[in-house]
């Protein structure tokens, strides 16, 4: 007969708990504490109560950043939830040469976000490929300000994000589609259901949990967008900084010797709370549907 000591499970779980405490729990706790101080990277902060949170209400740039993040999410969410599914349905078929298309659609995913944004920056520049084509074809007389107009810059970043994300979500949908029983499609076809009806009544319910997962992932990543906007705007967030995302604001306030860590932490916590919203909504939606 063997005796189990009371601490055996703790010994086994210890390394994982330590890891989580040091790299997850502690930074989170520290962020909360910092948000109530005026701390700088070289230390010496003092408790300032709710001052940083009061400043959030008075920050015009934050209002712009929140609007940008919400627009980003509202546009990316339907596009990146639906288009990859349609793409997955296209490349799901087993026909010669389909691997080439799957690879081609997936290629942007493995490219670095910064490199891709730099390339798009050149393409959308005043003297870039797109403006060259527009002017040569006579559609415009002067260059379109893709990178210097508030909304055009935002939508350029959205287009880049959608283009880059299609392949990633397509692969997730492909694995979900593989799990939809083929017999259901055969039975429905025998009963006279056409492709559209089979899509609505068999495919869509079959991939619904995946759709919810993908929607949650897109919501979070849209609210936390950084590289695309940062690189396309040369780190300045467009004229007046009106194209900044919340993460760009956090980066702006926290970097350098004189980083304003207190305010940056308050921004981080605000972003965390905002990110929870769409996730909880989608989870609730999924539970209801189930």
């Amino acid at each position, binding site marked *: 007969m063997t005796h189990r000591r009371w601490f055996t499970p703790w010994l086994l779980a210890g390394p994982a708990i330590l890891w989580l405490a040091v790299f997850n729990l502690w930074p989170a706790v*520290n962020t909360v504490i910092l948000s109530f101080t005026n701390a*700088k990277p070289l230390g*010496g902060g003092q*408790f300032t109560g709710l001052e940083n949170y009061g400043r959030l209400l008075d920050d015009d740039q934050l209002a712009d950043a929140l609007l940008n993040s919400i627009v980003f999410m509202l546009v990316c969410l339907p596009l990146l939830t639906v288009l990859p599914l349609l793409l997955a349905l296209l490349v799901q078929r087993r026909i010669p040469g389909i691997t080439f298309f799957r690879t081609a659609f997936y290629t942007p995913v493995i490219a670095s976000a910064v490199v891709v944004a730099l390339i798009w920056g050149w393409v959308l520049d005043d003297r870039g490929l797109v403006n060259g084509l527009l002017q040569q074809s006579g559609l415009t007389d002067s260059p379109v*300000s893709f990178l210097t107009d508030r909304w055009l810059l935002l939508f350029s970043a959205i287009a880049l994000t959608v283009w880059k994300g299609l392949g990633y979500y397509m692969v997730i949908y492909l694995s979900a589609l593989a799990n939809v029983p083929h017999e259901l499609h055969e039975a429905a076809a025998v009963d006279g259901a056409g492709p559209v009806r089979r899509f609505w009544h068999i495919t869509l319910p079959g991939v619904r949990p995946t759709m919810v997962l993908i929607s949650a992932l897109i919501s979070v990543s849209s609210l936390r967008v950084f590289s695309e906007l940062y690189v396309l705007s040369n780190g300045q967030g*467009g*004229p*007046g900084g009106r194209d900044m995302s919340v993460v760009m604001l956090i980066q702006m306030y926290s*970097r350098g010797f004189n980083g304003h860590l207190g305010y940056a932490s308050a921004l981080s916590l605000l972003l965390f709370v905002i990110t929870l919203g769409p996730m909880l909504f989608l989870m609730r939606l999924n539970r209801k549907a189930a």
Partner: protein
Amino acid sequence: MRRIWAALTTTAITAAALTGCGLGSGESRNSDSVASAAATGEVKGKVSLQTWSLKPKFTDYMQGVIDGFKKKYPGVEVEWLDQPGEGYSDKVLSQAAAGTLPDVVNLPPDFAYPLARKDVLLDVAKADPKLSDEYVAGGVEAYRYNGYQGTFGYPWYLNTDVNYWSSDLLTKNGLDPKKPPASLDELIAQARTMKEKSGGQAYLMSRKPGLGDLYNIGVKIMADDGKSFTFNTPEAAALLDKYRDAFKDGLMPNGVLTDTYAGNSKLFSSGTAAWTTGGGNFITSLATDNPTLAPKVVASPAMDTPPLYVQGLSIPKNTKNPAAAVALARWVTSPENQAAFAHLTSVFPSTKASADDPFFSKSDGTNAGDAKVIAFTSLAKAKLIQPVEVDDAMGTIVKQQFALAISGQTSSKQALDTAVEQCNKLLKG
């Protein structure tokens, strides 16, 4: 048992949190005692030196300087660390936060300022009373800060900006490279000619103004006590208005609104813009990017007060070997070693004794040589234009607001008021 564990854990987290966010008290050494030890101590033992992006191009030079130091002070051991160009401020920040800064560290004045404010750096003037006699005033002044007593670094090498004009592009568009604009009004007038003659294909102006442009028209950037920004004046608004009108008339590319300094010189290198500013060695580096353009570039002095760029060597107060640290900083920045360095690349020495070196004051007849002489002679009136108090976030806010004004999306006055208000908030925070 569980309660005890819970209590211990809570105590540990709270204690760690309070020290982690910098609310704990730190140890501070007395500057006088360190300075005195530096002035009177024997130069021996281990000393570390940190430079910024000098390897591999200047490895032989630096090794020669270190070998010379070891020869002068037998028994001293130098550990040389060279940090890569990217992320240097983060590296220094983490070293300072951990208290592991090397004994002698290369810090430009804006990096040294926050460390001096936190009482991390030694007042080298205390350890070395001859400092002001041996180094140029501008260089020494760069390491003295509003509201803080002391000089927090030895000035090392200096540089400034020179105007560079593409003679081909100017001539092709009806402008005379021998008569470059000498004021903003002349610049705008010539930019208009350039636009009309080139059909909007080439630009003369390709950057938006910054705080330096405001300084040059006499706008006071900060209050004397360094506690508030004051650049929202009617003169500053009038300057932004001029740029706004020039932008509206298509005299500058759209990219200036979000562009960085590199964007301006990139447009010049690619033959799209006919004017850029750069250090004394700009033509040499341009020869790599655009060898056809480089020989056709004409240099001229900056239109107003040239900006002063300073690199220096600072010594942390917690150095374990102050005597060797001060001796090493003096040795690296000595007239002989600085002159040897400046002969290798287009930087200029910060020592008064180097002023008479004909190498800097006489051109070899090439346009690169002319630029070097212009840069060297400009140093006499060059000034540290942007206050060291302007941190990354403030710099970004100023750029954003100026871009907003130039694009016409807000009035110049409003943009300046917003920039000053936000920068003041950050300054106080």
